[in-house]
């Protein structure tokens, strides 16, 4: 291609009268904008990590702080006057345990619902269900927090006889309810993307509907279904407001479903407002953000490797 003329009436423009200089320039601008929005995601991630780390970094060299204590101690006393301790192990365990409970509840329900919506129900019911499920996904997390605080906590107290209804189980159930719509809608997409010829092949061989599902559709859609589960898990790990309200917010490694816990996210949300800017406490909270960042990154990379491993088979 010849050089783009920059001045109107240039020799190149005369040779190509159908395209004005302006439209050529416009095309370049649009191309540049698209490229920019493409790389912006990378820029944002790097920038977010950079700024969070910049706020957190000074505490790494402070005398109150030991990285091993931060990672492996359960003692979280950020406002103690005599002996400040910043141990986040109980918070990490809190996050992981709430997430685990949520996964155990949400994955079977979510995948089951996705299979039902995509393969078993009538077209009319399917439309209705999809709309309701999407509505469920649109409920703000603070509303889920209310549900956990009032409705779910009463149910748990009545059913189990425990003293406090806001606990690990409550948070897990609420997070599961929040993750299910994501798992259903992405899982349903994955199942719908399986070519109909596979279903036809199985049916013509005399397979029942259920045999078609578990022998043909689940293997064929496993990548998409895994993605659905991981996005659901991602929501559970990062969720803040609902778990802040539903888990009871006690810094403590849980020894049962009915213990109160506190998660990394909820801890940041609750304490950042009170921590004086620039103090060690403030910086440790930012460091907690860095820790969360790493946890989600490890989950994502692991998921990516798993998906690739499956694809290679």
């Amino acid at each position: 291609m010849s050089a783009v003329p920059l001045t109107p009436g240039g020799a190149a423009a005369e040779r190509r009268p159908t395209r004005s200089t302006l439209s050529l320039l416009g095309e370049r601008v649009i191309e540049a904008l698209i490229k920019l929005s493409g790389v912006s995601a990378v820029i944002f991630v790097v920038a977010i990590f950079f700024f969070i780390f910049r706020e957190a970094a000074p505490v790494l060299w402070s005398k109150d702080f030991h990285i091993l204590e931060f990672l492996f101690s359960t003692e979280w006393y950020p406002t103690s006057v005599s002996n400040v301790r910043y141990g986040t192990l109980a918070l990490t365990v809190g996050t992981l345990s709430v997430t685990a409970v949520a996964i155990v509840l949400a994955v079977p329900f979510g995948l089951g619902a996705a299979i039902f919506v995509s393969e078993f129900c009538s077209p009319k019911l399917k439309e209705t269900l999809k709309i309701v499920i999407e509505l469920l996904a649109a409920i703000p997390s603070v509303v889920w927090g209310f549900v956990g605080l009032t409705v779910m906590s009463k149910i748990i107290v009545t059913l189990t006889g425990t003293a406090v209804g806001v606990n690990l189980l409550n948070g897990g159930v609420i997070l599961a309810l929040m993750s299910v719509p994501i798992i259903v809608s992405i899982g349903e997409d994955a199942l719908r993307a399986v070519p109909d010829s596979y279903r036809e092949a199985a049916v013509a061989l005399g397979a029942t509907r259920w045999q078609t599902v578990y022998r043909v559709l689940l293997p064929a859609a496993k990548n998409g279904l895994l993605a659905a589960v991981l996005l659901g898990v991602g929501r559970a790990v990062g969720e803040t407001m609902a778990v802040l309200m539903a888990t009871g917010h006690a810094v403590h490694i849980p020894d049962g479903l009915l213990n109160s816990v506190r998660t990394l996210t909820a801890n940041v949300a609750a304490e950042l407002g009170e921590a004086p800017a620039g103090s060690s406490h403030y910086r440790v909270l930012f460091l907690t953000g860095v820790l969360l960042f790493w946890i989600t990154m490890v989950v994502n990379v692991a998921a990516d490797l798993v998906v690739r491993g499956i694809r290679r088979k």
Partner: protein
Amino acid sequence: MSGPGELSIITRGLNLYYGAFQALSDISVGIRRGLITSMIGPSGCGKTTLLRCFNRVNERYDYVRTTGEIIVLGRNIYDPDVSLIELRKSVGMVFQRPNPLPVSVYENVVFGLRIHSDRSALKRADLDVAVEKALTEVGLWKDLRDRLKVKATTLQLEQQQKLCIARLLPLKPEVILMDEPCSALDVEGTRGIEELMFELKGRYTIVIVTHNMAQARRASDESIFMLMGKLVEHAPTEDLFLNPKNPKTLEYIEGRYG
């Protein structure tokens, strides 16, 4: 026409509606056992629809309504006590685009056995024998014996289509329905499938829908010509192509429409 003992499939007064649209009207036909019968006709004439009636795979769509009788291997397949699963075991189907399942070659061949028997009844050695037998019958064993673990969707199209035929065989079908089995294949692939059809003829009743009149002519014993949902002519292939009784058949095989 020969006696009913030699007929694999008989239909009597068969009508089929897609919603309000009548796709087949008053089809009465007898398809002879052990022969290759081709169904020809222009697009939309109902030949594929008719083929898909024979194993009731049309019923996947709930807006399909069928009236009349279809007798396969001596039983009306619309009788309430007929098991769809048994019917589909004895009437296998091959589709227009090869549709091996996205699992290994081995698992494709034993798929039918797995879904139709208890897990405990399946011994690895029996499955191995079934795979070798089925793949040998379709002429794939030599090429694939060392690649049984390969994902079936990565094979060449011709091999995929042969595999789709092979996976019917462990269920010991009596009838094999083929819906334009060569339309996705090149000349070599088409020849391969046609040669395989000749190999299978006699042991199985084969019904093939084809757009390709030359294929019907060289590969089938009897031909059925359909038009607008009606059966126009059914005769030995040679007669249908050389001395068609119906002027519409003549016009179609001469290529005046279609």
